C-alpha cells in the first residue's frame, strides 16, 4: 500500500454530497416525480453513512437501520406516487406550486 487507502471519511463525504445534491434538487425542481426521486437520493446518502459507520465500528446495528430505511422508503414512494397520480389525474398540468391550492 502506498498510503492510499479507502477510509470511512470518504464514504461519509460521498453520503453528505448525495444528501446535499438530493436536497438541492428537491428545492429546485417542481416536477413532483423528480422531487420524489431527490428524496430517494437523500435517503441513499444517509444509508451510505450508516453502512460506513457499521463497517467502521464492526457493528451490525447500522445495517439493521438501513433495512428499516429501505422499507420506509418503499412505503413512502408507494404512497407518494399514488398521491401524484391522483393529483395529476384531477388536474393534469399541476406542479408542486399548484398544490398550494390544497390549502383550501
Amino acid at each position: 500500500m502506498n498510503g492510499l487507502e479507502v477510509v470511512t471519511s470518504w464514504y461519509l463525504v460521498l453520503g453528505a454530497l448525495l444528501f446535499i445534491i438530493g436536497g438541492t434538487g428537491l428545492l429546485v425542481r417542481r416536477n413532483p416525480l423528480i422531487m420524489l426521486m431527490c428524496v430517494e437520493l437523500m435517503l441513499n446518502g444517509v444509508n451510505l453513512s450508516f453502512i460506513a459507520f457499521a463497517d467502521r465500528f464492526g457493528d451490525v446495528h447500522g445495517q439493521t437501520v438501513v433495512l428499516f430505511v429501505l422499507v420506509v422508503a418503499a412505503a413512502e414512494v408507494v404512497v407518494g406516487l399514488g398521491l401524484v397520480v391522483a393529483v395529476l389525474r384531477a388536474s393534469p398540468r399541476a406542479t408542486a406550486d399548484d398544490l398550494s391550492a390544497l390549502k383550501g
Partner: protein
Amino acid sequence: MVEVAVFAVAAAACLVGAIGVVLSRNPVHAALMLVMTLFGIAVLFVAQQAHFIAAVQVIVYAGAIVVLFLFVIMLLGVDRAAELSMGALPAQRWTAAAFGLGGAAVLIWLVAAVDRLFKGAKSLALETAGLTDAGAGSDPTDYVADVSALARSLFSDYVYAFELTSLLLIVAVIGTVILARRSGYGGSQHNGNASEAAKAETSSEAGQ
C-alpha cells in the same frame, strides 16, 4: 489499490447519477440516472461487507422503486410528465444555492470532525489492542458473517420495529389502493369516453 479504484468508479457513478437526476429535463432520464446512483451505492455497500444490504438495495430500489417510478411516468405519459418540469423561481434558486453550499460546508466540516475523532480513536485502539488494521475498529473476521448477525439483531433487538414496518407496509398498500380507486371515480370523464368507445365498438361489431 483495487479498493481505491472501486471506490472511485462507484463514487463517480453515484455523483454523476445524482446530478443527472437533478438536472435532466426528461423524467425517464432522471429515473435511469437514479438507477445508476443506486447501483453505485450497492457497489459501495459490497465494498463495506454489507452484502445482504447491497442485494436488498438492488432488489428493492432498482427492482421495485424505480420500476414504480417508470410505471407512473409511462402512465402519465412521458410528454406530459416532461411538461411539468418548469424553471425554478429566482428566489427558489437562491434558496437552493444557499442550502446546497451551506449544507455542504456544514456536512463536510462535520465529517472532518468525525475524521479527527476516528484518528484519535484509532491511535487509542492501536495503543490498547495493538490493532494493525486501519479500517475496522474491531476484529473484521467476526463482522464478515453478517447475515446471521443482521437477522439476530433484526429479530431480537428490533423485533417491535420490524413488526411495525409490516404494519406500515399494509397501511401504505391499503392507502394507495384507496387513492387509486378514488381518482378513478374522479376521472370518470376519461372512463366514460372509454366506455363509450367500447360501446360503440361492440355495437359496430353487432352491426357487422
